[in-house]
């Protein structure tokens, strides 16, 4: 019986389950339109890597063991490093593309494109809203504790501080940031965390509204906020430069993400490099998205994906999203009280970064209370602040735990 499980039927069943998971994700991406731009490549990568006929053949496209198994790595200063030379010689297509994830190339490049598409104007016009972007990182840290507690409670789940940090960052609701942290701290959990992060981001319109109604009063929800002041071009150009310097001084580990975000934004706001902006936000970003999605999906082998840990990550990811929403709303409520009813607390939930989905949710929930209320632009402030906030939280985790 043991031999059967060990060598015979069990791997076959696991492979079938993985193929089924891949097909379900493809269904969610194609029919339900759950973040299809990423979920579709991720799901197809999962399909490619779990094809049974490729096992042990030379046609195999992805060797996850090259990136996680110490046996295939080289030791350097007491830390095992991936052997780039061997991967280049023997790796398949997806191995080579995965180097971009492993070496931390893709997420910052995606941030250049996101920077090109982001308008920080609403944030500059209403500086207080940046605090909501910080409050919404509450879920990140709460989930960090939650993962450690879960690990202490169940012997079958073992999340150390690095794994806990990678899971917590799901609450930042920012895919590239989550991938960037996870590839450094807990590469084995990458597929589960990426799938959880992108699926929950797609579910934000379902996850957030119940908390938004629960944590705000009807009167507060119908507050119409003052129109934002116009923001000059000088301010918009100075903003990315100043943010990069400030973040770089305090938390250098966040610079590769924040710096790239601000590079993209500066290219856009300066208005002198239109060609570069077009490339960064279209072609470059699309190419990277394909590489990133398909390779992250390809790391989801049956051995790494089908475990109690994945289940834990899916639960904790939801917890992270909920508590990030709650954190933002709590500060929103506080601002409502302190401003004597001038701030609509609904914009707080937009502090989770998922741009612009979270801001849309604020707008829609607000409009249900007061049909002539337009919160979208007010919610964009906390929304883009959330991107900076979660990148800073990522930097905090990296500086604390990287190299342990």
């Amino acid at each position, binding site marked *: 019986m043991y031999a059967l499980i060990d060598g015979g039927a069990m791997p076959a069943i696991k492979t079938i389950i993985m193929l089924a998971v891949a097909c379900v994700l493809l269904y969610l991406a194609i029919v339900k339109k759950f973040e299809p731009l990423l979920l579709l490549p991720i799901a197809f990568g999962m399909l490619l890597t779990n094809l049974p006929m490729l096992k042990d053949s030379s046609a195999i496209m992805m060797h996850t063991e090259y990136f996680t198994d110490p046996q295939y790595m080289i030791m350097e200063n007491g830390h095992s490093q991936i052997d780039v030379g061997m991967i280049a010689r023997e790796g398949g297509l997806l191995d080579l593309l995965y180097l971009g994830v492993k070496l931390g190339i893709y997420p910052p490049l995606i941030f250049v494109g996101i920077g090109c598409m982001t308008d920080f104007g609403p944030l500059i016009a209403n500086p207080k809203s940046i*605090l909501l972007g910080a409050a919404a990182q509450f879920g990140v840290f709460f989930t960090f*504790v939650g993962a450690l507690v879960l*690990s202490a409670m169940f012997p079958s789940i*073992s999340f*150390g501080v690095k794994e806990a940090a990678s899971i917590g960052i799901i609450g930042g609701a920012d895919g590239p940031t989550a991938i960037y942290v996870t590839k450094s701290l807990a590469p084995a959990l990458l597929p589960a965390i990426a799938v959880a992060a992108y699926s929950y981001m797609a579910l934000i319109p379902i996850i957030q509204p119940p908390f938004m109604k629960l944590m705000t009063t009807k009167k507060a929800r119908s507050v119409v906020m003052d129109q934002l*002041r*116009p923001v000059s071009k000088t301010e918009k150009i100075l903003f990315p430069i*100043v943010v990069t310097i400030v973040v770089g001084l305090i938390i250098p580990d966040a610079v590769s993400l924040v710096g790239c975000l601000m590079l993209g934004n500066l290219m856009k706001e300066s208005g002198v490099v239109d060609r570069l902006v077009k490339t960064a936000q279209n072609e470059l970003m699309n190419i990277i998205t394909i590489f990133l999605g398909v390779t992250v999906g390809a790391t989801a082998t049956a051995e790494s994906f089908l475990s109690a840990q994945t289940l834990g990550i899916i639960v904790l990811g939801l917890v992270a999203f909920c508590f990030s929403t709650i954190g933002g709303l709590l500060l929103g409520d506080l601002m409502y009280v302190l401003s004597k009813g001038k701030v609509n607390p609904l914009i707080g939930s937009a502090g989770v970064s998922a741009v612009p989905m979270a801001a849309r949710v604020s707008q829609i929930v607000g409009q249900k209370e007061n049909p002539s209320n337009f919160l979208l632009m007010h919610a964009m402030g906390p929304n883009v602040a959330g991107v900076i906030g979660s990148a800073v939280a990522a930097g905090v985790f990296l500086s*604390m735990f990287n190299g*342990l």
Partner: protein
Amino acid sequence: MQYSEALISGQNLPMSEALSTGGITTLVGLAIVFGVLVILMIVLCLFKVFFYKEPAKKAAPAAAPAEPAAPAPAAEAEADIEDEEELIAVLTAAVAASLNTSTYNLQIKSYRRVPNKRPAWNNAGLRETIGNRI
């Protein structure tokens, strides 16, 4: 800060250690995140002091792009000539689009605001359409 073997591997992790490390990390982490963003907030407030001058007259059209795209936008009587030209251009384009013709075939001679007499149902429908598109 030193982390024990149990904290790094996650195996046989005592609950007390999980809670204490988690709590400290949460406090330090949130403090840093808030610290960085508070500094940025102060910088942005300085931006306002240095770069923003209260407009002398009441004409600030650049903000709030989320206005509903009603077919006949409101016209402010005291708007500048330039604003008026822009408004007429918008009206011409709107009429051309609804008549399915070119703007060259149209000439706006005058315009006035029509009071909103739409039934509540139509308003609800309009809101829903806008809501679906944002």
